[in-house]
C-alpha cells in the first residue's frame, strides 16, 4: 500500500504504516550525519531546530555555496544508518523525530524505542542520489556550518520517494526478518 504523507508527521500517521508499504513525503526533511549527532548527543548541544514530528535523512550532501550565502544542491544521497544506530533512540524519544530515512537499517534498541514512542524507519535506495536530489526542491536552512558537510540541513521536498517501510512502529523490522531467514538458509547450504 502506498501513503502520501505531509510533514510534520503525527503518531497516527506512522502507526498506520506496515512493513513493505511505500511512502512519499511532501514538506520538510532534516539532513544529519555522524558529526551532527556527535554534537547533539555526545557534546550535549540541543539541535537549533525543532525536530518534533520531523523526518530526518542520514546524509552529508554535496553542495555549492552561492554568493548570497545560500546553498545549491549538487548531490544529496543517503549514507548507512546502522553506523549511527546509537543516536537514533535519542532522536525519537528526546526530540520527537517520527521517521528516519536511510539505508542499512537500525538495530534492536532502536526498533524497541520506535515501537514505544511511535516512529518508523523508511528505507531509501542507497546510492540513488541523482533521483533523491531531483526530489529535493531546495535547501532552506543550514545550521552548524563548521561541520560541513555534516551540518544540520533543512530541505524542502516534493513527492520524495518511494520509500519502503523497513521498520514499523510496532516492533517489526524487515531487516531482522530477512537476516533471520538468511541465517537459516546459510545453515542449510551444503558447502
Amino acid at each position, binding site marked *: 500500500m502506498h501513503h502520501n504523507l505531509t510533514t510534520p508527521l503525527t503518531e497516527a500517521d506512522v502507526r498506520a504504516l506496515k512493513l513493505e508499504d511505500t511512502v512519499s513525503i511532501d514538506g520538510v526533511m532534516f539532513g544529519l550525519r555522524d558529526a551532527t549527532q556527535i554534537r547533539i548527543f555526545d557534546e550535549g548541544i540541543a539541535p537549533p531546530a525543532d525536530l518534533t514530528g520531523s523526518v530526518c535523512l542520514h546524509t552529508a550532501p554535496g553542495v555549492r555555496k552561492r554568493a548570497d550565502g545560500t546553498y545549491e544542491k549538487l*548531490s544529496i*544521497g543517503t*549514507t548507512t544508518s546502522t553506523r549511527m544506530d546509537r543516536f537514533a533512540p535519542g532522536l525519537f524519544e528526546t526530540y520527537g523525530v517520527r521517521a528516519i530515512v536511510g539505508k*542499512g*537499517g537500525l538495530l534492536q534498541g532502536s526498533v524497541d524505542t520506535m515501537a514505544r514512542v511511535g516512529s518508523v524507519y523508511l528505507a531509501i535506495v542507497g546510492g*540513488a*542520489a541523482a533521483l533523491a536530489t531531483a526530489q529535493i526542491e531546495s535547501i532552506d536552512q543550514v545550521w552548524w556550518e563548521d561541520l560541513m558537510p555534516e551540518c544540520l540541513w533543512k530541505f524542502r521536498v516534493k513527492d520524495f520517494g518511494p520509500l519502503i517501510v523497513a521498520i514499523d512502529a510496532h516492533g517489526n523490522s524487515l531487516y531482522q526478518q*530477512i537476516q533471520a531467514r538468511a541465517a537459516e538458509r546459510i545453515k542449510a547450504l551444503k558447502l
Partner: protein
Amino acid sequence: MSIYNSIETAARELYLRALKDIPQDVRAALAEARDRENQEGNATAEQVMFTILENIDTADAEDTLVCQDTGLAVFKVNIGFPIDVQELDRRLRKGCERATADYPLRSNTVHPLTRKHTGTNTGQGIPVIKLAFSTSNAIEITLAPKGSGSENMSFLKMLTPAEGRKGVKKFVLQCIFDSGARPCPPMIVGIGLGGTSDVAMQLAKDASTFRKIGASNSDPDIAALERELLDQINQTGIGPQGLGGATTALAVHIEWAHTHISQNPVAVNIQCWRGERATAVISPEGTIEYAS
C-alpha cells in the same frame, strides 16, 4: 599535448565519468536483476531495482552524480612505455584535486585520528595508485572512486590449510551475512585467495572493483568456485538493499596468488551496485581515448 598533461586531464575526467556514468556491464547486470525479481514476484525487490535503474537514467539525463559518495580514488595504471612515475603520481593527484575543485565534488579525505578534512579528495596515501607494467605501448588508467558503504565491508581471515575450500566458502558466506543491507546490495563480491595478508586484500579489491561483470577467472577451478558462491550468496535471500529478494550479488569475482604451505588467506572486499569505474588509454603522443 605532453604525456603528463594528458595523464592529468584524463585523471580529472575519469573522476567525473566514474561518478556519473555507470559501466555498461554493470547496467546490464542490474537490468537482468530487475527482470529476475519481477519473474520471481518479489515486489519490494523489483521496486528497489526499478529505482536503481531510474536513478541511473536520471543521472544520464541530468549529467549528474549517480551517488553522493565521491569515494576514495583508487587508480590502476598499466604502464606500457617508459615514463617518469614520480610525475605520473603527481599528475594523477592533481587530476583528482582539479575534479574536486571544478565540479565541486564532496571531499571525503580526513586524517584518521583527528578527522580533519584535507578538502581536496587527496592526502597522505590518497589517491591509491596501483602500478602494473606491460609492453602495450600505451598507458591505461582505470579510476574507481571507491564508495565507503561497501568499502567498510572488508574482511580478512588467515584460515588454516586444513579448513580448505569449505572453510573459504563458509567464511565468505559469513562476511555476506554480516554485511547484510549495509554495502548497498545487489553487490559485486571480490575475493582474494592466497598470497600474504596484504596481497589477499589487494586481490580482493582488484576482483570487486576492476574486473568487468561477466568475465570469469581463467583458472577453471577458481571459476567454478565463483559460480558456486554466487549461487549460494543469492540463496541467502538478503536481496537488493537487504530488503529481501533473489539478487544479493550481481557477481562473485575471485583473484588468487600462490601462498605459503602453512597459510590459507581469504580476503573479501565488496563493491556496491554502482560498480563505479572509468578507463582511459593514452598513446605515447598523448592522445586520450575513454572506454567504459
